[in-house]
């Protein structure tokens, strides 16, 4: 028998510190598979955020640099402007990219910075214990919206992908999820396209990934994965939002 599934080369063999059923480790793995397939391990530079994935550099076997909260897009801009041959990607949570980092995200997209943004949306601030996030849905109880998010008091869930798609410098925006085998395969395709766009100098690419957070959603992993289908993707519809690159990914 032939081994048909194994550990990607650019993923370090370290035990993940993530919770059982967390989407981060899936996304790390498929991103590393993409890095392997595109042969960019030696020029990839990743920018992880403060958050559960602050330790992404223990897992991605590529150069990485920590960023201040929300500033990943600016840090990535600095790296790419200094060394355009690099393949720079940010890896950001929803608080990071769509609350404190909204300005940096929009403007990097607006300038068409040739970078790849991987946006992990789990509708809460995970690492700090489950506070309300810009993508928290109405009625959802979190530690800072203990009575359920009320639009009038706490605002509404932000559809960051749709917003980024509005600025002309963004060339590719897609929303995917990692809560089923089919979705994971689609997510990987989207991530691959986002990296291929950078290699081809097409501009700013954003892949928003709905990611299960069993611990802060207070569900079992299986229930959390189901909840992405049953609830989250109704608020954040999956699918291609923008593609001005002119051609499909060469798979």
């Amino acid at each position, binding site marked *: 028998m032939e081994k048909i599934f194994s550990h990607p080369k650019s993923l370090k063999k370290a035990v993940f510190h993530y919770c059982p059923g967390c989407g981060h480790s899936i996304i790390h793995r498929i991103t590393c598979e993409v890095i392997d397939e595109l042969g960019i391990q030696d020029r990839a530079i990743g920018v992880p955020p403060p958050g559960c994935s602050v330790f992404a550099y223990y897992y991605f076997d590529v150069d990485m640099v920590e960023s201040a909260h929300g500033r990943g897009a600016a840090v990535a*801009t600095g790296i790419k402007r200094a060394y355009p041959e690099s393949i720079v990607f940010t890896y950001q949570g929803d608080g990071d990219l769509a609350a404190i980092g909204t300005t940096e995200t929009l403007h990097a997209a607006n300038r068409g910075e040739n970078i790849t943004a991987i946006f992990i949306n789990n509708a809460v601030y995970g690492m700090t214990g489950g506070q309300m996030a810009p993508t928290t849905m109405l009625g959802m109880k979190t530690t800072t919206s203990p009575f359920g998010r009320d639009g009038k008091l706490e605002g509404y869930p932000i559809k960051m992908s749709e917003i980024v798609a509005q600025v002309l410098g963004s060339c590719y925006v897609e929303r995917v999820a990692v809560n089923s085998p089919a979705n994971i395969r689609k997510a990987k395709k989207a991530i691959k396209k986002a990296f291929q766009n950078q290699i081809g100098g097409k501009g700013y690419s954003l892949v928003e990934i709905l990611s299960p957070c069993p611990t802060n959603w207070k569900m079992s992993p299986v229930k959390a994965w189901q909840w992405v289908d049953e609830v989250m993707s109704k608020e954040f519809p999956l699918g291609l939002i923008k593609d001005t690159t002119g051609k499909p990914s060469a798979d």
Partner: protein
Amino acid sequence: MTGNAAIGEAAIRAGCQSYFGYPITPQNELTEYMAANLSRRSGCSFVQAESEIAAINMVYGASVAGVRTMTSSSSPGISLKQEGISYLAACQLPGVIVNMSRGGPGLGSISAAQSDYFQSTRGGGHGDYRTIVLGPGSVQELADLTHHAFELSDKYFIPVIILGDGMLGQMMEPLEFKHEAPEVPPVRQNALRGAKDRPSRFVRTFTSNPPDLEELNWSLFRRYQLLQKQEVKWENYMTEDARLIVTAFGIAARIAKGAIKQARAMGLKVGMFRPITLWPFPNDQLKELSNTTKYFLDFEMNMGQMIEDVKLSLEGRGDISFHGRPGGVIPTPSEVLRVITRIYYQKGLN
């Protein structure tokens, strides 16, 4: 050339590869100079960022990727950059930050002031760190110290702040550039440029193990001690026989010099001690002057900030008077002369 433009030209000649800025009075001419002269240089880039916060984080990114990089702003914008500066210091990354300071606090005034001395020298951001702080006093010095800033920053892996002010930035004086721009901007050896033919690396400050952070702090501290020993710069002006020594930096020192010349013409034995590195502060060199006289007059365009370093240096051995004008009010040499004369006679130095 104006001071602001001189900084820009000096930076380009020092091999600055990228500049990230944002409009704020009174340093816009520097941002505009870089837009005109850096952005089309081969291999270089200019970005007008969406905020001063974004700009300092772009500096951080460019520095990680190994190039000489710079940002500039004025007082309120420098406040915004403090987190980013703390990160640069923590990650031991070079970078040059220019502050053409203006009146504060708050939105303040657009006129020159020196009220960012604390912000600059006490590490305006969080954590135990220092940045080198240079205090130029002329357009020539703006150019020379800009070059020096890049050199020091790369040599010691520490961010460097050039603490200018609105007046220096707008002044037009003849100057001479002592360096030519390199054909290709230099790239630092330990840059993060992709794990080619080497294991991957990461740059970070966060640790879940406090003893590791303690070790980092000690290592930074040892470097700061080395800087204190090796890199202080100062100027003694007519201090050899002075009965009263003025302590001042930057534009205030320039104004004071005018007053001191007139005082000397009147027969008053006045001199000036001017720190050029505000951090590391030339403590020993100032302390030595207390052998000449114990009478000092600290003159600053603020409510009294550098005076704390003057007091620390003199270790209680000085009689220190203070004259300050905050808010962006520019004192004249005559005003300073009046103060010098008053103190001189009050203290019985005649």
